[in-house]
């Protein structure tokens, strides 16, 4: 009895000692890892690149495809160690995530800023810590371009213009009333897609934008806002939604009001995710401008170049296409997302 107790005490002691050693080993190992990583950053580039990515959220099908592309590309096999965080569409969560990546001392920080403004302070911190930042999908409105290395993403103004031109040429041969479902208030795609559409339709007196509200890029809010629009105006000819999901929500609202989407009320959206393309092929949406979510490969390439100390372009524009209903039927079977 007594001896067992003693033995147990001794065993506990040994275990505790081992734990202390293990911890010490861990911390020293961590330290040296950091050193080599830093050295790798300055010199060669065959080491694993640790990259912290702060995603906007999971608000739409587009975002899901974007997340998947990034997670599938930045893998251990491709030489990356990815830390991924979801900000649930809140700027403070993103700032927090970026700070923790700075504290962890990752090699590269990449993120899609949920809104355009308010990033200077945290980007300054990253710069002071010597960690390069890459923006994906959305831009920041900072005056100081040295705060980030590169911005990879689509040209949102061009997307808005493409949508506006199609409307102007194909639908606005007679006067039409347009309602707009905006993206998240203050987000770059919302601001730019609105501006692009207005610019492209401004020379056509037939196009009147009668109402514009935010649907926050989500289906449910798109539906709620569209219900309100349908109630407030009985002469809507066209819905211009800043993404497919809000357009899909609008379809639900239009159907619930006993109208036929795509015929009684035409719908034009941006994104071209699977559900949107399906609705386009089914004739419920009339035109979609693509916004390519497969940014993973571009991000991997730029991250490697930045860590290797090579010059990268400040702005990398992702090529987008656009689809009519007939093109959607053709393209649908071979779409990746």
């Amino acid at each position: 009895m007594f001896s067992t107790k003693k033995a147990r005490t001794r065993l506990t002691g040994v275990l505790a000692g081992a734990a202390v050693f293990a911890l010490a080993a861990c911390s020293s190992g961590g330290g040296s890892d950091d050193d080599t990583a830093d050295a790798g950053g300055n010199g060669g580039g065959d080491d694993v690149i640790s990259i912290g990515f702060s995603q906007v959220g999971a608000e739409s099908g587009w975002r899901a495809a974007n997340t998947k592309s990034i997670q599938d590309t930045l893998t251990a096999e491709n030489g990356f160690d990815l830390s991924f965080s979801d900000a649930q569409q809140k700027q403070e969560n993103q700032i927090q995530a970026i700070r923790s990546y700075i504290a962890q001392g990752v090699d590269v920080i990449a993120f899609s800023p949920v809104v355009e403004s308010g990033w200077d302070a945290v980007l300054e911190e990253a710069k002071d810590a010597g960690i390069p930042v890459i923006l994906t999908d959305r831009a920041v409105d900072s005056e100081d371009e040295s705060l980030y290395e590169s911005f990879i993403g689509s040209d949102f103004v061009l997307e808005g213009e493409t949508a506006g031109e199609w409307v102007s040429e194909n639908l606005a041969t007679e006067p039409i009333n347009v309602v707009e479902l905006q993206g998240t208030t203050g987000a770059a795609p919302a601001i730019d897609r609105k501006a692009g559409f207005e610019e492209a339709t401004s020379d056509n007196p037939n196009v009147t934008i009668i109402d514009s509200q935010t649907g926050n890029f989500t289906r449910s809010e798109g539906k709620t806002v569209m219900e309100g629009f349908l109630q407030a105006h009985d002469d809507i000819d066209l819905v211009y939604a800043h993404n497919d999901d809000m357009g899909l929500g609008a379809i639900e609202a239009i159907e619930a009001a006993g109208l036929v989407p795509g015929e009684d009320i035409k719908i034009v959206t941006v994104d071209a995710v699977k559900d949107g393309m399906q609705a386009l092929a089914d004739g419920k949406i009339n035109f979609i401008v693509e916004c390519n979510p497969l940014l993973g490969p571009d991000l991997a390439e730029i991250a490697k170049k930045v860590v290797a100390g090579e010059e990268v372009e400040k702005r990398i524009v992702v090529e987008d296409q656009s689809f009519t209903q007939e093109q959607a039927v053709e393209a649908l079977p071979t779409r990746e997302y």
Partner: protein
Amino acid sequence: MSTAAPATPTWQRVTQHRLFWPVVALVALFVANTIANPGFLSLRLQDGHLFGALINLLRGGSPLLLIALGMTLVIATRGIDLSVGAVVAISGAVALSFIASSSDPSSVTTVLVAIGIALALSLVLGVWNGFLVSVVGIQPIIATLVLMTAGRGVAMLITGGQITTVNSAPFKTLGSGFWLGLPVAVFVAGGVFALVAFLTRRTALGMLIESVGINPEASRLAGVKSRSIIWTVYAVCGLFAGLGGLIISSNVMAADANNAGLFIELDAILAVVIGGTSLSGGKFSLAGTLVGVLIIQTLTVTVTMLGISPSVTPLFKAIVVIAVCLAQSPKIRDAVAARRRRAARTSQAAEVAA
């Protein structure tokens, strides 16, 4: 009774009813909407279904009514349930993930099983909350905060961080279907409302809940099973939130773990408070909760109707809510009444002097 008071006793009884100001606010919102769009109150029949803003209002408010009903009972026992929004997300995530992974998403059996699983899980979550509050004795706000924070993570786990979407006609019926010309969701919420009203007002259950809310210890000594009652209301609240979550996800046929039911706990608490149920427990009013839900739902519609800019929407909502709460507050009402009496006396004195 001062001779200066021009009001008749009946009029006074009406104005002093605790639902007077909430109903006035609701009517005011309706009037504002009708002015902005004269067709607001009109209904039309198409394909055998009723269409119109009022119908949208009822359908859109159904999930909130379900959640607010559960919240009313919880608040009546001096508690609060912050986890309802998370339960909404979990319930939708479970049902849609099940339907999406099944071999036949359009079969009625699949949908019924999915609804069954989602409701059972919601009930379990409610029971968990009830356990923490009634057995372990953790303060309700903390106990339910656990699930509020963890719940969305659970929902994200279930959906794998993606938005799960399905095409299933039977499931769509729950949110967008019609029966006897009215939306199915309205029948679901209305049925639950009637059931709760019957159980609490036609049996002793309502009185027992109120007594627990007023003084749990005294109720226990008087032979009321406080613990079981508290446990039950949390379980029921979880179940109703789950049902609300099914309607919300069926509305858009998508389970969005991040945004489904986001801040709906605040809307539900607000609806309960606007309806005149005190957060300190005791007396509760189901009719009041119904009016509160309608006010909040109408506010959402009003924002689009009046074309209020998206960036000031929260402020607009806050102003209306604070106005209703101030109008209801006994202190403010006394102050206004006292001023009116003074004003009446001065005018009388002026008449006499003249």
